[in-house]
């Protein structure tokens, strides 16, 4: 059995300097060329979850990305943490606002790889925050989709998937095939490669497929249903007031009164 984990190369937005959040009105973009590229954080969580299942079971994890040659960097990282295979769908256009196009490329890749029973991807990427690709993949494959997954376990031949719901979290016992969109959880940091792992990964190959290999004849660009109208920087207004008081009790009481006054909490009857 194989798990395909979809990973996307994005810019590390945490690294962008506060003063550099300036929108170029013409290109509708922000110049963040100088920051490092990383694996989209939710995708990293998905990859780690998949690897943990592979660690203890006869299940292979395949890392898949879509993009140009520069995206090999994240696949090399995936190989360093010992995925069974790494595939790049060679596609040079930006897919940020084209989730149907991205899903089409992924769906056909999944079908080309044999014996795939699970597709995992991050809930959304930090670039567009669209959050649709995973759901569209499941629709195209005709597989069920569980969203906002924070954990997956494989026990006695069965999968248990924990995900967030309005009321809290819920664990489902589901049969493959299925698609999961993964959210963050405190203990799913992607493992780090040792120097030995890095050296060994250099010997491994990345498979590169293009649209022809995937039997796609249609123009992926034409699947785009979104056009970016505008981006803008939301102005943050921070207001801070200090609560004075000679004791902690007095301060807490004043805070309590303030919160009631502002309607944040209701007074206890």
């Amino acid at each position: 059995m194989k798990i395909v984990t979809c990973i996307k190369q994005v810019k590390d937005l945490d690294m962008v300097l506060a003063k550099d959040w300036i929108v170029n009105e013409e290109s509708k973009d922000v110049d963040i060329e100088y920051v490092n590229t990383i694996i989209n954080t939710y995708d990293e969580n998905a990859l780690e979850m998949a690897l943990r299942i592979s660690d203890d079971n006869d299940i292979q994890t395949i890392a898949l990305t879509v993009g140009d040659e520069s995206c090999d960097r994240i696949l090399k990282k995936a190989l360093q943490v010992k995925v069974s295979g790494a595939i790049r769908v060679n596609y040079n256009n930006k897919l940020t606002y084209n989730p149907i196009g991205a899903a089409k490329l992924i769906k056909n890749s999944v079908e080309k790889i044999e014996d795939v029973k699970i597709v995992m991807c991050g809930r959304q990427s930090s670039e567009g925050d669209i959050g649709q690709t995973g759901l569209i993949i499941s629709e195209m494959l005709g597989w069920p989709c569980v969203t906002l997954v924070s954990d997956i376990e494989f026990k006695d031949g069965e999968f248990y998937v924990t995900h967030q719901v309005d009321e809290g979290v819920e664990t489902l016992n589901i049969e493959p095939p299925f698609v999961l969109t993964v959210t963050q959880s405190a203990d799913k940091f992607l493992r780090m490669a040792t120097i030995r792992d890095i050296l060994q990964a250099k010997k491994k190959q990345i498979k590169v497929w293009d649209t022809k290999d995937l039997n796609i004849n249609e123009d992926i660009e034409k699947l785009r249903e979104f056009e970016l109208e505008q981006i803008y920087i939301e102005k943050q207004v921070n207001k801070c007031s200090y609560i004075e008081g000679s004791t902690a009790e007095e301060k807490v009481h004043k805070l309590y009164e303030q919160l009631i006054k502002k309607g944040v909490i209701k007074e206890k009857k």
Partner: protein
Amino acid sequence: MNKEMVIEGLGKILNKEQILTQEAVLQEYSTDITGLRMAQKHFGWKSDSLATCILKIRSKEEVVKVIKFLNDEKIVVIPRTGGSGVCLGLETPSESVVLDLSEMNEILEINEENLTVRVQGGVPLEVLEETMNKRGYTTGHFPQSLPLAQMGGLVATRSIGQLSTKYGGIEDLLVGIEGVLPDGELVLIKNSPRKSTGPDLRHIWLGSEGTMGVITEVTVKIFKLREEKWMQAYTIDSFQKGLQIIKQIVQDGWNPAVARLHDRTEAAESYSHFVQKGESILLFLSEGPKGYAKLEGEAIDTIAKESGAKAIGSKPLEIWLEHRNDICDHLDMYAKQGLVADTCEISAMWSDIGNIYKEVLERASKEVPKLIAMSGHSSHSYKQGTNIYFMMGAVPEQSIEGAEKTYNQLFSIIMETTLKYGGSICHHHGVGRYRTKWIKEELGTSYTMLEKIKKAMDPNEIMNMGVLLPMDKA
């Protein structure tokens, strides 16, 4: 005296709410943020040696009374402020008493004529710096622990800031100091620009790590904020060449506030857009009165370029300035992955530092089976030498003991190599309890001086025993 009697005795000096005895609190205060414990906590480590109580101290008078009581009863005392120690210096021996001075946090006097500020030991450095900035001044002290550290602890650990090449370490910034000796006597070393009145007694406090008494107040220098800055980053094809560039800059008499050299691993990790494979990165920042930064910057630029460095603009500096203390927000990030990770800073003369760096990296890659990284940067330079701040990580056997074994292996490589080349085993983190196993070799024949000073200052052996001097001989 049993625990109940100790608490009862302290209850006659302090209010009840100042004496904390809840197990969760004692557990929290039982250690500091040393990488070893972070990793071990991931595998379930808990201290089995808890203090009797934590005292929330509010005044120097309380310190005097409490210390007198504890000295009479021969109870070990752990003074503590921000808790950002990284060498196990704050670990609590069982039945010890922790003096938490973080509520002594008043800025007492800002003297704009003498450019000094007098503060209580628990004033957070970040608050002090912000307060000074509003008045047009800076403390000139920017350790990575800035978001956590407090003034008493900074003096007690011989802290240093990221702009030290210009402003110096805390030893250069400390003007006067007040503290309580182990017998409960309150002593003050008055402010003075410089004097010749015997040994500089401030140095008993500087780096004392709680072993010589409790620091209650410090007076430190402040500096006029400078608007004029010059910033430039360079790439260089070898770390050793980078060291030579910094050496020439400081030996020619320049003191750029920031003079950093990050090796190829760190350069690729943090500045991948700017560096080619294998390159190290140099970061320089100059600041000063009108005209100074430009003048110094031009000199640095000439030296760097003549030595083969390539200018790559100021952006890497800007990134570093904005993100330099981010680690404080996610200290346990590596531990959560079951890894051992920490930093270790050493110093050596220019003639030896390059060899230490090279050999540490070679040994680590040969000897540590699951090494993730061993990298280094030079960040505090002097005319005679510099420091290397090693950053290390490895996958240990997944247990409390396994984490300790791997941690010890990584640390020992750095300590042994440093001592082999005559370097010093701590540049600015202090000795704590962890590095005492190398302190005799570090101090050589001068070790006896430290022993004798400690014995004279603290005959009842109550002040943070096990720190600086290993327990067996202390």
